[in-house]
């Protein structure tokens, strides 16, 4: 096998040997040797996650603490870098937000948690994209005031358990996790292992993300995989799951040249932050909110069966260029091609008929609202 040699300079996660044992096909991703699929195959892994529970190794993502004298100081310091409302976070709440640049573009998207635990009352917990983590951590560290510091977490794996039966499965290992609401986090023992558990994910399904000590990661993963409902899921299905859920993939659907307003992520910016600004590029974002944008990220449903991949041009009936597909492929649950992309604002309304240039042929499609599937997050409180 030449595969091992070709991947010598790649980093590995604590679950690497387990992936190989499970028969995964490994590929380089964001500097890591990661499983793109297991013997089940991308299509069935996707469908399994929507039917039961899928287990994902997301240990390549960047985990860090932001620590300071107290919550307000730390949240205030991070608010200088992101448009998300962090001061409003209740203990145990998670916020999806973006690191922005001075042009209002997106350096990365990330999850920020205010820990519920008293001994972490002066911290925020962040999870950033693998491909961006070194730059993100440098950027954040360089912009923290005296007394506030970023501490990368390098001794923890991160696994996600996603799907309609994820909560039932997880209840067997961590009973207190059942009552958690979506986008909340708690420290708890999972099968006796101290973990930070978030009820969150990036598949459009209910589920958990579990930050687990590196030394216990394989044991916990094997315990979860031993449940009849749980199958290991690779990056291939992770991508089709998030696309069906209408979620952005950094470097494709959002980047340093797309603003949160253009990316249709305005929902992640609270009224106070829209009014007060105070994050990089705020003036540009506020101007876009007030005056509108010229292009916007939308969902796109091709009419035929041919998938329209990233980079496919979008045009109107006369052939005028309207935009470009940023993510596209086959949606196994939808049972047909789906896509998202940026389109001229005059054509961004759901129901608008457009044409996609796939292999030299203009193929009809329409702008649709996302997600492409019904989301099934767990929320008990009103």
């Amino acid at each position, binding site marked *: *096998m*030449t595969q091992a040699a070709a991947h010598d300079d790649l980093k590995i996660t604590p679950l690497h040997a387990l992936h190989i044992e499970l028969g995964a096909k490994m590929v380089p991703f964001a500097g890591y040797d990661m499983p*793109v*699929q297991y013997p089940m*195959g*991308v*299509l*069935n892994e*996707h469908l399994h996650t929507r039917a039961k529970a899928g287990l994902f190794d997301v240990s390549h993502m960047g985990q860090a603490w932001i620590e300071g004298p107290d919550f307000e100081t730390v949240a205030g310091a991070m608010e200088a870098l992101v448009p998300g409302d962090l001061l409003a976070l209740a203990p145990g709440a998670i916020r999806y937000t973006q690191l922005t640049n001075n042009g209002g573009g997106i350096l990365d998207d990330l999850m920020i948690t205010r820990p519920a635990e008293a001994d972490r009352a002066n911290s925020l917990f962040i999870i950033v994209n693998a491909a961006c983590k070194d730059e993100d951590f440098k950027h954040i560290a360089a912009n923290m005031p005296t007394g506030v510091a970023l501490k990368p977490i390098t001794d923890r794996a991160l696994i996600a358990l996603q799907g309609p039966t994820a909560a039932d499965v997880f209840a067997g290992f961590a009973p207190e996790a059942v009552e958690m609401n979506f986008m909340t986090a708690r420290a708890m023992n999972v099968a006796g292992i101290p973990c930070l558990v978030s009820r969150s994910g990036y598949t459009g399904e209910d589920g958990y993300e579990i930050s687990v000590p590196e030394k216990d990661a394989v044991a916990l993963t094997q315990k979860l995989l031993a449940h009849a409902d749980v199958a290991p899921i690779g990056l*291939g299905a992770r991508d*089709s799951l998030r696309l069906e859920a209408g979620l952005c993939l950094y470097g494709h659907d959002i980047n340093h040249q797309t603003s949160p307003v253009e990316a249709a992520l305005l929902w992640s910016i609270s009224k106070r932050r829209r009014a007060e600004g105070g994050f990089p590029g705020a003036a540009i974002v506020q101007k876009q909110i007030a005056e509108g944008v010229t292009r916007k990220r939308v969902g796109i449903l091709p009419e035929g*069966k*041919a*998938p329209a*991949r990233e980079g496919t041009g979008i045009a109107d009936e006369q052939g005028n260029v309207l935009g470009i597909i940023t993510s596209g*492929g*086959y949606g*196994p649950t939808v049972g047909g*091609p789906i896509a998202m992309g940026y389109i001229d604002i005059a054509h961004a309304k759901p129901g608008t008929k457009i044409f996609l240039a796939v*292999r030299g042929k203009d193929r009809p499609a329409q702008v649709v609202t996302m997600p492409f599937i019904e989301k099934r997050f767990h929320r008990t409180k009103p």
Partner: protein
Amino acid sequence: MSEIRYTDQHEWVRVEGDIATIGITDYAQEQLGDVVYVELPEVGTQIAAGDEAAVVESVKAASEVYAPVSGEVIEVNEDLDGSPAGVNEDAMGSGWFIKMKIEDMDELDKLMDEDSYKSFVEGLD
């Protein structure tokens, strides 16, 4: 007995008289993963050897299928439109793509026989 030949792009061609049935190999379907769409040419299209004859889309990506020989497309496998997964299930049989009327039988000599293709694939792993 029909004769099967292979290309280094993982197409197979089964020859009966001057008719070539063309598909992708089992190795190719395994590399592609789940096939979700196959775009086939119109019957009557003239295709030169090495030119694009079809496109096969898996969950992961789109891949071109090249004509192993030159000729006219005389039939396409319409079953693949409704069940593209047929390519994964029986790539060398019912998952065939097109039938062509071979223009120049000599072109077959440039293709690999089963043993050569087998060693070719082994060399790739």
